[in-house]
């Protein structure tokens, strides 16, 4: 609760709303004991007095009644009616929603069809029809506004209830022999109360507006009693001669509704976990860079990553996803980057072209040199012109990485035309050729398909075709076969290997599977906890892993025909990179770890064959 209040008031606008609304509510409650004129005391001699007149702070209306007093009494009435309508609509709507959602089946069907029917009306028609039946009057306007809003609550709450009704604790309660009524009251209702409160806090302002509207039309409160809406309605006749009589109640409605809305938004945001984690912020066009200075260039290579540091800054926490990683990729070479989920391998790959989502991602150090040119902090336009043209990506799940609403042919054509000013027809011809290159049958016809109309393997072929569109020098493949089944996986790997040899591509291949590395990669680097722990030529690393982690990782690959053996999972979990222990990150899961492993920084030793371990399995 205190966390909730802190979050609420961290949002300054919500705090402002809370204060203004609080003030208005207190004044409205105190109205009967404030020294005000009676609200209905007419004095036609003093009609339309301007604000700040003697004895009438806000002036008087067309009957000489004190505006301040009428405003306060009107506010009181409008607030009461608005809150009451929200309460009634919320309670009735929630009840209907809970019953429909909990019992499901026919009850649900019939109720929700009825609700749909009500929602087929523009709301005011329904409200007008109800007022037509009940006759004009404030109470009837309240009923109309409440009824009109019931469908909204019923629908929302039904959705939430359906989710809850199928959860384990409901089944458990049923097995324990609890009746429906008791389950509803003790298990379901407590879980939906927050949802109802949020829905009410976001609609209450709306209901105050609607009641004011009906009163404005003359269908709500009847003279001499006035709420804010009918004050405005009466003042309309004198809008031009005495505008203050309109402005006073109008501004009050605006203030009330605005403070309610601000507060409602604040409440909703404070309760939304996504906002707290920053998951609702927009990723920028390129990863943010906050680097002191670039390390001096050393060595050559097509792509050289030197001491790269990429971090995620979430609130006060810093996650060191990539911690001083250095890699080199030569022309035509395939380098495997392997590690468990969360080891930082994908973040390393995405850092190359500044594609790490930011916020929260920040590149804080190191250098990434493509043909000797440093890309970190490079102007956006340079980065953009390299993306897809020099360095292309293939991503993991082609269903979510291809645009769902564009035909795949058009996505390929776009990939070609962003870098080359060729005609649409020419781009189309090339796109078909690319689809044929990745061995998609009926390429011309398939180009007109949408991603959801293709199989996983075909989609990944499209992903590869798109990466090849501009004949890049480097392809970064981020787990391209993980989402595919085994036979398709083998086909895709064979295809990549072919393309690489026929086109002289360099590939940085990200995976968690040593089996794949063995098939495809010349060299391999093993990542753990954001760092490289071992690197070397694939056959050597496979034959004689030096780091205990690499050894365990290789042992995880089941061998076909090797007979039954226990699959060796690595006990424990990968480390949380916001709180890394000093020394070796693998020490907590390592059988051979000693005190010295936990003492301090361990260097990555070696040249062609590197290992970061004090007690390596073999001497490289």
């Amino acid at each position, binding site marked *: 609760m205190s966390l909730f209040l802190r979050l609420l008031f961290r949002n300054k606008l919500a705090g402002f709303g809370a204060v203004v609304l609080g003030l208005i509510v207190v004044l409205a409650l105190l109205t009967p004991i404030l020294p005000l004129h009676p609200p209905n005391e007419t004095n036609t001699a003093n009609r339309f007095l301007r604000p700040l007149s003697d004895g009438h702070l806000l002036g008087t209306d067309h009957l000489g009644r004190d505006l301040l007093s009428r405003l306060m009494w009107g506010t009181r009435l409008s607030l009461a009616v608005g809150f009451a309508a929200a309460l009634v609509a919320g309670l009735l709507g929630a009840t209907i929603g809970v019953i429909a959602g909990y019992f499901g089946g026919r009850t649900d069907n019939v109720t929700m069809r009825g609700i749909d029917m009500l929602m087929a009306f523009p709301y005011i028609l329904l409200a007008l029809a109800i007022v037509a039946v009940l006759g004009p009057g404030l109470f009837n306007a309240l009923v109309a506004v409440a009824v009109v809003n019931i469908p909204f609550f019923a629908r929302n709450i039904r959705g939430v209830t359906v989710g809850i009704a199928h959860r384990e604790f409901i089944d458990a309660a049923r097995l324990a022999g609890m009746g429906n009524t008791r389950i509803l009251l003790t298990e379901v209702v407590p879980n939906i109360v927050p949802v109802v409160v949020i829905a009410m806090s976001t609609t209450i302002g709306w209901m105050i507006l609607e009641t004011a509207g009906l009163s404005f039309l003359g269908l709500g409160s009847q003279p001499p009693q006035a709420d804010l809406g009918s004050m405005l309605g009466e003042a*309309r006749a004198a809008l031009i001669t005495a505008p203050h009589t309109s402005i006073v109640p109008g501004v009050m409605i*605006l203030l009330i509704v605005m403070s309610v809305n601000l507060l409602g938004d604040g409440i909703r945001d404070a309760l939304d976990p996504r906002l707290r984690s920053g998951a609702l912020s927009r990723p920028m066009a390129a990863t943010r860079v906050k680097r002191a200075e670039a390390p001096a260039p050393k060595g050559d290579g097509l792509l050289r990553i030197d001491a790269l540091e990429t971090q995620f800054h979430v609130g006060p926490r810093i996650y060191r996803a990539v911690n001083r990683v250095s890699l080199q990729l030569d022309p035509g070479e395939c380098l495997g980057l392997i590690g468990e989920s969360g080891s930082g391998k994908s973040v390393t790959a995405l850092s190359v072209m500044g594609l790490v989502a930011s916020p929260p991602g920040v590149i804080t150090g190191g250098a990434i040199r493509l043909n000797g040119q440093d890309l970190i902090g490079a102007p956006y336009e340079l980065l953009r012109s390299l993306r897809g043209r020099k360095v292309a990506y293939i991503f993991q799940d082609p269903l979510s990485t291809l645009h769902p609403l564009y035909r795949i042919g058009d996505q390929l054509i776009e990939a070609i035309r962003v870098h080359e000013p060729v005609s649409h027809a020419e781009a189309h011809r090339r796109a078909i050729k690319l689809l044929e290159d990745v061995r998609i049958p009926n390429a011309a016809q398939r180009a007109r398909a949408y991603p959801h109309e293709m199989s996983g393997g075909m989609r990944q072929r499209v992903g590869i075709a798109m990466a090849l569109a501009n004949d890049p020098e480097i392809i970064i493949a981020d787990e391209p076969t993980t989402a595919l089944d085994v036979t398709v996986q083998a086909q895709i790997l064979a295809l990549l290997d072919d393309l690489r040899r026929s086109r002289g591509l360099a590939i940085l291949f990200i995976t968690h599977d040593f089996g794949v590395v063995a098939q495809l990669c010349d060299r391999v680097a093993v990542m753990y906890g954001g760092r490289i722990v071992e690197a070397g030529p694939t056959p050597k690393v496979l034959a004689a892993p030096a780091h205990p982690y690499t050894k365990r990782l290789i042992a995880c690959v089941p061998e076909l025909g090797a007979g039954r053996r226990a699959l060796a999972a690595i006990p424990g979990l990968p480390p949380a990179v916001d709180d890394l222990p000093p020394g070796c990150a693998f020490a907590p899961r390592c059988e051979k770890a000693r005190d010295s492993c936990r003492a301090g920084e361990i260097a990555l030793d070696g040249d062609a064959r590197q290992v970061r371990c004090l007690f390596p399995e073999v001497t490289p």
Partner: protein
Amino acid sequence: MGGYILKRLISAIPVLLGITVIVFLIMAMIPGDPATAILGSYATPENVERLNRQLGLDEPLWKQYFIWLGNLLQGDFGRSFALNRPVLDEILDRFSATLILAGTAFVLCAVLGVAAGVISAARQYGLADKAITFVVILGISVPSFFLGMMMILLFAVQLRWLPASGMYSIWGGGGLVDLIRHLTMPALALAVVATGVVARLSRGAMLEVLRQDFIRTARAKGVHERRVIRGHALRAAMVSIIPVLGIQAGFVLSGAVYIEMVFQWPGVGRMLVDAILKRDILLVQGGVVFVAACYVGFNIVVDVAQAWLDPRIKT
């Protein structure tokens, strides 16, 4: 596509029937005797009874409903006793005015709202975003009728730029320019609230989409950020914005009632309020059914647009 449209049209039939039932039942609950309302309280019992028979009010309720429905289907909405003319004629006259007003406001809210939402999302937490967010909060909190009155004070009374009320000038009016001058203020006042809502939801939808994997793919291809936002992201966000536009159309239609009162616009909303205050039941009944039916029709258009935009729906 044709099949989908047909399916949607057929599914609207029960909704339309439901609407007539609801409206009929609500109107049947009105206390008092319509014949007495028409003839006045000094009418003789014989006259009242004769009129009741003429109006078919001595029949059982379900029979009355089917007679009324049968007449509706033949385009006979009955006769308004207060105006002494066929209900349908009056509705059609008035509805064209409402359609001009609400249609303009709807186009405004859709265009301005989506544009504001996209800008807001593209510059999240920037100055433009903060300014738009502020205006949006103001926009969704101001009663449209109050806003309309303030606009009259400023633009018609103080600055004398625009006429304060009506649809055409009484003398020498009637042209398109005249209509636009009269339409500007009410359409803007009506569009403000809906624009706010659309802007807010578009911003949310864009932010949601901008985090998706296919946006990263577009960037990885080297697509310019401008095109990523206006093409890839907006196209995907439209899938969740379009239904919101459908809902907003209902709110614009509803808001038109207030705006028509404020600006003396000769539309269907003002007609309904007058009819309620005069207890002109057939006019209320016919007007509500007619507008609701148009709204249902509009929602079909929205659904079809949605299906056209999202190839995943048709299957």
